[in-house]
């Protein structure tokens, strides 16, 4: 998020201009109220959302800053054509503040909730409004069923996904790999062999960083989840997430130890930063940067890390950095993919709120947002041509790949006390020297009864 401001600003400027022009075209026709809103060709696509001119819908999410600007740009023409004003607010304290707002009777109309666990909690408490039939139909047409299941509680569907990301990526330097004759590994064993080769060449193969302010620890939980999917398979993964097997089950311990063979091996980590413990204090944003200086060679981090590289870094298969798919342990079990995303749920059921919710589930919304750059969605109407950077393209390909076994980020599905609490903290302790058994027992004990 900290980088490449200038190109992006230019982009924003260009799109703003384009949108402003189209908006002018829209508003030029709409002389009196809603009925005429759809009369211009630019606004034809928004015809089905007309009839709520002059209303306001508030949206609250954790997306802020430059990303939030792009988001607001993306629904500008929707606003201009329908006359619905969207009041957007992004906050870094989203997860803690949303329950306060809701309990205090001051809920936003729509929230982008990235944790199905939180979504379920609001749904169970009767705070969420069931999605309208339109929204549901739109979502079913555009998103894979497994995604919709995450937003379905007790048979009721609460909202479509919007943005997504793919977490099963390992960042590397294609340049260095080519220079040294290293091959991108396609199985777990190849990856281990490659790590040994690199370590023998005098470079620490891996770097990592799990510091992230008050969310410190989450990058390590992603590691564990990714390996759980590969080591034990998707079914066991589901049992683990639903707590039908305990957190300290031997299968979990085996996955954690497999990660430990990389993250806790002083020969392998932590290139550019120091010893194993430095992983705990290195921010995930900084985590991969030593790749550019060849101080480490591999960094497992989600697709959105593409935005973190310093200005001027070429992200491409033949560029300075790129990412490969974190290989499967047993390729016969399919191609497991770990990912995340946010769901657009509503706390109000006014017609204009439902219209916005439906629009957000549409292919237009996804394509408009994707064209502005740095964005991925599981929306199957999303055209790859509209996705800007190569890593996002790769992510969309994986998300739309029928053979991929997709699973949502497990810590977002668990109760917050674990998924945003003891699991994160436990991983920090684990990096800092505690044993796998001790950490897993501790997390198991903290699971809400």
């Amino acid at each position, binding site marked *: *998020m*900290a980088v490449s*401001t200038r190109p992006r*600003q230019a982009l924003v400027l260009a799109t703003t201009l384009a949108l402003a022009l189209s908006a002018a075209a829209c508003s030029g026709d709409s002389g009196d109220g809603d009925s005429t809103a759809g009369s211009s060709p630019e606004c034809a696509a928004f015809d089905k959302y007309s009839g709520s001119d002059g209303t306001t819908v508030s949206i609250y999410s954790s997306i*802020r*800053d*430059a990303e*939030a*600007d792009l988001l607001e740009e993306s629904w500008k023409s929707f606003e201009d054509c329908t006359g619905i004003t969207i*009041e957007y*607010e*992004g*906050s*870094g*304290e989203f997860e803690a*503040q949303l329950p*306060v*707002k809701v*309990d*205090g*009777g*001051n809920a936003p109309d729509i929230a982008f909730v990235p944790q199905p666990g939180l979504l379920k909690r609001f749904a169970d408490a009767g705070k969420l409004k069931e999605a309208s039939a339109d929204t549901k139909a739109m979502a079913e047409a555009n998103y894979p069923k497994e995604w919709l299941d995450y937003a379905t509680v007790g048979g009721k569907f609460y909202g479509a996904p919007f943005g997504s990301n793919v977490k099963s990526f390992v960042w590397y330097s294609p340049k260095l790999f080519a220079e040294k004759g290293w091959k991108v590994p396609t199985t777990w064993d190849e990856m281990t062999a490659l790590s040994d080769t690199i370590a023998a060449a005098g470079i620490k193969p891996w770097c990592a*960083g799990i*510091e*992230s*302010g008050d969310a410190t620890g989450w990058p390590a939980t992603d590691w564990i989840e990714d390996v759980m999917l590969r080591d034990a398979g998707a079914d066991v993964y589901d049992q683990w997430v639903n707590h039908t097997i305990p957190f300290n089950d031997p299968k979990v311990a085996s996955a954690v130890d497999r990660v430990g063979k990389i993250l806790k091996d002083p020969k392998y980590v932590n290139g550019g930063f120091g010893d194993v413990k430095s992983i705990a204090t*290195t*921010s*995930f*944003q*900084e985590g991969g940067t030593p790749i550019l200086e060849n101080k480490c060679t591999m960094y497992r981090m989600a697709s959105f890390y593409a935005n973190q590289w310093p200005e001027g870094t070429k992200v491409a298969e033949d560029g300075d950095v790129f990412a490969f798919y974190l290989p499967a342990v047993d390729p016969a079990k399919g191609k497991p993919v770990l990912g995340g995303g946010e769901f657009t749920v509503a706390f109000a059921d006014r017609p204009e709120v439902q219209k916005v919710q439906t629009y957000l589930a549409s292919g237009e919304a996804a394509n408009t947002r994707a064209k502005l750059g740095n964005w991925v969605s599981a929306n199957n109407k999303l055209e790859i041509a509209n996705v800007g950077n190569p890593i996002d393209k790769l992510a969309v390909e994986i998300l739309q790949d029928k053979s991929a076994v997709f699973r949502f980020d497990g810590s977002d599905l668990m109760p917050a006390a674990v998924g945003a609490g003891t699991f994160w903290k436990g991983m920090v302790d684990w990096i800092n020297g505690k044993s796998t058994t001790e950490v897993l027992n501790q997390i198991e004990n903290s699971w809400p009864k």
Partner: protein
Amino acid sequence: MTTTTPVLAGETVDEAPPRTAVGRVRKKLTSRTATTVSIVIALLWTVPTFGLLLSSFRPEDEIKTTGWWTFFTSPHLTLQNYDDVLFGRSSSSGQLALYFINSLVITIPSVLFPIAFAALAAYALSWINFRGRDWLYIVVFALQIVPLQMALVPLLSFFSRGVSLGGVTLMPAWDLDQEQKFIQVWFAHTCFALPFAIFLLHNFISQLPGELMEAARVDGAGHSKIFRSIVLPLITPALASLAIFQFLWVWNDLLVALIFSGGGRQTAPLTVRLADLAGTRGGEWQRLTAGAFVSIVIPLIVFLSLQRYFVRGLLTGSVKG
């Protein structure tokens, strides 16, 4: 117990004229060692802040690779970090000015209201004789520990749902919109400031000489008149120091603002904006340092220029405790 009145004590701050006996004694005691040691400690105390200030002007790659003290051997300065934090990235430039005004609009009434209400209450708790006042004071004192976080939800629903008892609406919801949200923020800050403000002012007002009050009563003055014409002028220093305290607290606050101001451009204060800019960037020292310094520069200026009153008020309130 001291014999000087609080007011007199207040006037001796920061001046050591050798006119009085005590002054002469002190003068004699002024030693070179004490001066040196205290200056060294003072400088030591300032080093962390200074390091931050200096770092915020250094180029990004230097901040990340070398210590700020190397500046003295290879001085490179840049305004880039401030440019980034203040004007960079999202939306139109100069946005910070908007948030700055918001901070100001939030702060002024949030300082005025609690001080006035606390002064009235502290007077009543000190000089109006009614049953249970000591217990009332103790309760108010103890309320200092109620964690702010626990008060957020009930207070928010007070605004958004109003008050109703057994189905009867005693007060409708406030339905505040846009700029009107400032009212919520003022209200919340006023509530949360009261226990400490009453505690501090009570310490002070209850120490005023009783003879003054007696004399005024004999002259036929009522409580209101005594409060206005005797107490208020005497406690001005305490009010000033409380005002500065409250100013620092409100200006630096993030939690209350996050919940009650709505977070948008219209009402959110600087702290919210800066938390957005700096909050999630663990390793981005260049932005963190500049952001942190922007957030502390206003309180620092206010504080340094009003320091004299601050000290005066605090000490007069507590000398006799």
